[in-house]
């Protein structure tokens, strides 16, 4: 039971819209890349179980898609499960694989995630994604996730005063990072030129304060990761990356129910006291509709397990769940990179930019690398694995975004409007 869990390989099939290859073909490409990089993996013999990650049955019109993937990958009759938790699905799949290995029942667990979102037009994709919100309440009003996340960001802006320019700076950082990423949709569609704050302001308004460049892309793609027990990890690699902390947390389905939520009331008193006087105080001032309580809860659990009490100092970089740029800013606060209300300061001081103290989204993440939901966090985890094992320069064919000597990184993912969140801490061996 005290067995540590290692990451011993990962692979990505690039994010784009459209990818014409079939879902199972994208998954095969990701697994093939991992196998090519890790000749020590005796495939499929070494795989004890598989956890599959895809977000939506609607987007492909196919239920139990993982049964197609599983036999396509030649992994019968091994145990296989699908995890389903909205945008949290891929991080949840990784956490489940970790727990499978911790249970002692399985030694090596493969995680495969994918999504193809290009089969429907954009308004219909928005509609099907929004089927993950309360279809009796939020859905019929027509905001969908662009709207839900916008109202949350408006509330945070109202309380803490970040500006559209702060959000645009996050967009610039992430898009420019993605121009180096050979798996990124932005680079496929727009090339390698850097963008500016002005370019963000010129992009189409979607849901004030969000513009097109502030929003996640609609993408096709796949990714995989192989986790192994301490006992078997050394067979695969001399340089494993260890998972030293995992965390999970939840919040309400309807964001509008968070204002007086009795379950969060008093839970984080330090964040209730920094609440400014610009608005009527709610009965549950943290997170209410401004921050993400599930992210705080999942982050704290992972920090405790990994022995982290000063994340900015103890983490070298992070890959966060950023469907909209205000979410990244708020996550800085919820993950304790700064105090509540100081997310904008981190943006203005460049702390999370490449070269900053805690670079976030070196991959470009959701708004620039792309967001095929079931694959996204697994691809981010694979990018973390490559950074921690110093393979990024080779994989990306450039040193422009390759870290050297990085020891520890954080992955955070969530679903809905922060209805469920997961955090994983990765450490180099």
């Amino acid at each position, binding site marked *: 039971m005290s067995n540590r869990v290692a990451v011993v390989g990962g692979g*990505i*099939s*690039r994010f*784009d819209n*459209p990818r*014409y*290859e079939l879902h199972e073909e*994208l998954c095969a*490409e*990701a697994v*093939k890349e991992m196998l090519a990089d890790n000749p020590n993996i005796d495939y499929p013999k070494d795989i004890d179980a598989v956890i599959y990650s895809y977000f939506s049955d609607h987007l492909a*019109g196919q239920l139990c898609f993982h049964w197609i993937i599983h036999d396509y990958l030649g992994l019968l009759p091994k145990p296989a499960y699908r995890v389903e938790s909205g945008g949290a699905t891929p991080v949840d799949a990784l956490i489940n694989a970790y727990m499978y290995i911790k249970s002692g029942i399985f030694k090596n667990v493969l995680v495969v995630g994918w999504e193809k979102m290009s089969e429907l037009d954009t*308004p*219909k994709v*928005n*509609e099907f994604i*929004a089927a993950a919100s309360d279809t*009796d*309440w*939020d859905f*019929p*009003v*027509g*905001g*969908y996730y*662009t*709207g839900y996340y*916008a*109202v*949350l960001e*408006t*509330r945070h*802006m*109202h309380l803490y005063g970040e500006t*559209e320019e702060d959000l645009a700076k996050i967009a610039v950082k992430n898009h420019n990072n993605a121009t180096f990423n*050979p*798996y*990124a949709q932005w*680079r*496929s569609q727009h090339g390698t030129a850097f963008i500016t704050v002005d370019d963000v*302001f010129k992009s*189409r*308004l*979607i*849901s*004030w*304060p969000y513009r097109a460049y502030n929003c996640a892309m609609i993408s096709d793609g796949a990714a995989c990761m192989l986790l192994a027990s301490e006992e078997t990890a050394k067979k695969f690699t001399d340089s494993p990356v260890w998972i030293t902390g995992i965390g999970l947390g939840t919040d309400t389905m*309807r*964001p*509008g*129910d968070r*204002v*007086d939520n*009795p*379950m969060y009331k008093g839970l984080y008193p330090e964040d209730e006291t920094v609440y400014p006087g610009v*608005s*009527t105080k709610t*009965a549950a001032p943290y997170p209410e*509709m401004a921050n993400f309580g599930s992210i705080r809860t999942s982050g704290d659990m992972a920090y405790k397990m990994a022995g982290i009490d000063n994340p900015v100092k103890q983490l070298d970089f992070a890959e966060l769940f950023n469907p909209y740029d205000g979410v990244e800013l708020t996550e800085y606060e919820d993950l304790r990179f700064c105090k509540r209300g100081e997310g904008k300061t981190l943006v203005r001081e460049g702390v999370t930019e490449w070269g900053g103290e805690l670079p976030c989204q070196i991959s470009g993440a959701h708004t620039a690398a792309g967001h095929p939901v079931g694959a996204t966090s697994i691809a981010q985890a694979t990018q973390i694995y490559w950074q921690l094992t110093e393979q990024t320069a080779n994989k990306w*064919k450039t040193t422009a975004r390759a870290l050297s000597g990085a020891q520890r990184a954080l992955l955070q993912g969530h679903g809905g409007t922060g209805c469920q969140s997961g955090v994983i801490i990765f450490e180099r061996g």
Partner: protein
Amino acid sequence: MTYRPKKIVEAWEYNKQWDEWARQGNWSPVGWRWVEGPKGYRLDQLSTANYLVIQRPHASVYHHSYGMTSRFFKGLIEKKLYGAKCPKCGAIYCPPRAHCWNPECRLQETEWVELPLRGEVHTFSVMAFSATPFLKTLPFIIAYVRVEGCCTTVPTRLMKINPWDVYPGLKVNINFVEHPKGDIMDIYCTPAETPDPSKRMMTQEQIERLKNDMQKVKEWVVRKFGSEAKPSIEI
């Protein structure tokens, strides 16, 4: 057949054409294209391949019961706003919950109370893009409104106000549409007070940018839907 009720008390019977429409969207191809596209898992390793892309429609009609919250939605049809009040802790929910979630109340069943048609904007967004059913009504404002006395906020549309005049704390009236259908879109909000310009969330520069955006969205909607376009914000 779904829901064979013992007795139908009252009804707005749906047009059975919808059943026919749902039957027509039956997963069978209605067209195809033989296309040329990229193949490959990395941008630096692409080749070209041909793909067959079919068009395959699908549709359904859901027969959905609102369960124990039915009183709320029937109330909308009657142009009355109801909340659910917990007899143990006194919390009033709108959106309603049939069982109180307060940890001390151990899922106590709630009771119906009629609510005042007044509330306050908690937060909002100006929508310039949406999904299929609502594209024609772009641009529009969504607001999460705390109905007076309630401990939750309701997603709703905010009308008859310039988007830059909206701010959290703005007092609003709750109105019913002329012909309610039995979902939350049967209500919408309008300002109950003259907006205070000093509380605006946007600078003059941002307002000008937003006006320009609104204009572009309206042009797009008119171009796409012609006379069916019904933008919700007048500039």
